[in-house]
């Protein structure tokens, strides 16, 4: 049984909407990242995965507030809540060094008037005041060489780099301090296919070289997920509905939503011609007023009476968790998705 690198417990994060109401975007979520593994976090747009990434990376900014949650990482317990006045300063030493965020859209991640090498120096000095320029440059050039990237990147401004190069450069900067956990938020979304491949290979190489000890890979791009991740957590309406080894989820989905989501990606095989893809009827709920009981029940074809009234508890089946009443009744069964034969 692999050890756990990071365990986030009871994470709740809310958005202060213009109407004055607080909308829970992440509702009492618990997530683990085993040592040396890449955990994917997937779901439709607006399910709360980016918010969760921000909360875990401790960079939540008003109007986003982390109301509750703790992170246990390497025997250290960190309070993720951002309500207290000093929380920003308290979280600062962890940012970039313990947990680091690889942002969505690296296009504007670097200030247009800042050379990359100066950013590198600033990042290192933020955590160790007396870092010399030479030390910072050494670390940067070593890392670039290790990942087979040109070192002239350091002397450039952001606008001088192409999109793919920028993304990889940002990845290097985000991992410069060897953070224990890297949270990659849709890193491949804005890239063309060849750049995607290069980035993914770089991430895998970095995990292998133990630059990071764990990655949370957030994306809605399902084919990428199945290529990259060891485990997969599926989010719906601010809650995690299923969590387990990627292969099992792909072939042996236990939650109706997971099954519908994963089967919405077509494999270009002969069989596909005979299959009828079932979309998921309806649309994601308004988080300000989520459905009672199981949040997925209005759109679920297996919904039972209990689903409308009670929220399902997590069922743990040998390292594979699922929160679903139907799954409770059908232990270890894959969700049967109907396929029409032509």
């Amino acid at each position: 049984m692999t050890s756990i690198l990071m365990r986030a417990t009871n994470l709740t994060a809310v958005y202060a909407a213009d109407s004055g109401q607080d909308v829970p975007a992440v509702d009492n979520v618990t997530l683990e990242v085993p040592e040396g593994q890449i955990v994917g976090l997937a779901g439709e747009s607006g399910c709360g995965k980016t918010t969760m990434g921000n909360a875990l990376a401790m960079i939540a900014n008003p109007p986003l507030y982390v109301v509750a949650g703790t992170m246990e990482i390497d025997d250290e317990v960190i309070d993720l809540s951002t309500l207290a006045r000093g929380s920003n300063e308290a979280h600062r030493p962890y940012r970039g060094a313990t947990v680091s965020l690889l942002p969505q859209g690296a296009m504007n991640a670097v200030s247009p008037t800042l050379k990359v090498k100066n950013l590198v120096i600033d990042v290192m000095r933020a955590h160790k005041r007396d870092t010399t320029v030479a030390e910072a440059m050494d670390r940067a050039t070593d890392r670039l060489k290790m990942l087979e990237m040109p070192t002239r990147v350091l002397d450039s401004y952001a606008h001088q780099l192409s999109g793919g190069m920028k993304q990889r450069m940002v990845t290097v900067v985000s991992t410069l301090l060897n953070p224990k956990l890297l949270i990659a938020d849709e890193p491949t979304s804005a890239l063309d296919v060849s750049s995607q491949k290069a980035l993914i290979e770089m991430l895998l190489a970095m995990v292998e070289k133990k630059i990071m000890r764990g990655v949370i890979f957030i994306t809605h791009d399902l084919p990428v997920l199945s290529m990259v991740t060891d485990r997969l957590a599926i989010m719906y309406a601010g809650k995690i509905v299923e969590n387990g080894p990627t292969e099992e989820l792909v072939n042996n989905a236990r939650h109706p939503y997971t099954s519908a989501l994963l089967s919405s990606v077509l494999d270009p095989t002969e069989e596909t011609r005979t299959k009828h893809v079932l979309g998921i009827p309806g649309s994601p709920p308004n988080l300000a007023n989520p459905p009672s009981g199981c949040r997925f029940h209005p759109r679920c074809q297996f919904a039972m009476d209990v689903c409308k009234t009670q929220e399902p508890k997590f069922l743990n089946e040998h390292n594979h968790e699922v929160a679903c009443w139907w799954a409770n009744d059908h232990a270890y069964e894959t969700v049967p998705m109907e396929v029409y034969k032509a």
Partner: protein
Amino acid sequence: MGLRRYLANKTVWYLGALVVAVVLNFVLPRLIPGNPVDVLVSKMGQGGLSSEAQQRTYEAFMREFGLDKPIWDQFVLYITGVFHGNFGASFSFYPTPVSSLIAQSVPYTLALQLPAIVLGWIIGNLLGAIAAYKGGSWDKSVFTTALLFNSTPYYCLSIILLYVFGVVLGWFPVGGAYSLGSSPEWSWAFFSDAITYWYLPFASLVLINIGGQAVGMRSMAIYELGSDYVNYSRSLGIGDRKMTGYIFRNAMLPQITGLALSIGTMVGGALITELVFSYPGMGSLLFGAISSNDYPVIQAVTLIITVAVLVANYMVEILYGFIDPRIRASKSGEK
């Protein structure tokens, strides 16, 4: 676009603007149907000249000012004159050459405007930056005050300052550039006297400039606070102080462009300030010339103002090209 191309681009069209300005400067006053010399001579006639003498004077003036020649020749004369710094003779102060009138008034205008623009820009931007960074009630009060100053026309503030501090409180002299009896010279005594006359007009300019820059800088800085790079630097654990450094470096750029754009308006309003204080700079000279239809002076002053503003704009734009890395270090486009 590369630096060289940027510089060339800017040089070319500032030269173009200059040409247009010179032409306009010549053409616009001449849209009047009628002859300025008529006005002049009739004024003299009120002083009792015989009509014969008036006729002779009229012809002499026409020759003198080249008004008896066709318009194209007048234009050529004008251009060559300008290049030699010869603007002809003033109508009202005949035969004093216009250039000496200007030479007397330029130092006073420069003494007011130059420090007002530079200091106003520096202090204003600092103030706006701090307000944006601190937020809260400090921000609110700085913003409202700055906006109040910024929206007050120069001459309105001048009048208020003059009345309150000059007339009512009597702390400052009420008009002019130096005490009666003293004459301009490069002596300490003269400077220490003249500076008391300088404070109020300078204050009315610089306070408004500070207000304007503060308002602009604050908006730019607040806008930048929401940028991606701020969020990213924060996620790397970079502290607030460093981040504000990034923000200001970026917010500064449009402020420099803004300075170029506003020099034109600043100069205009500041000239009127001179009127309020009877300060003998170009504004007062222009005012006097307008009232007495002294066309050579009007034309010369407007031309100089235009050229000065264009030159100032040009220098600021060139400076910007060297400061903004997006222009200085252009795209090399590697994959």
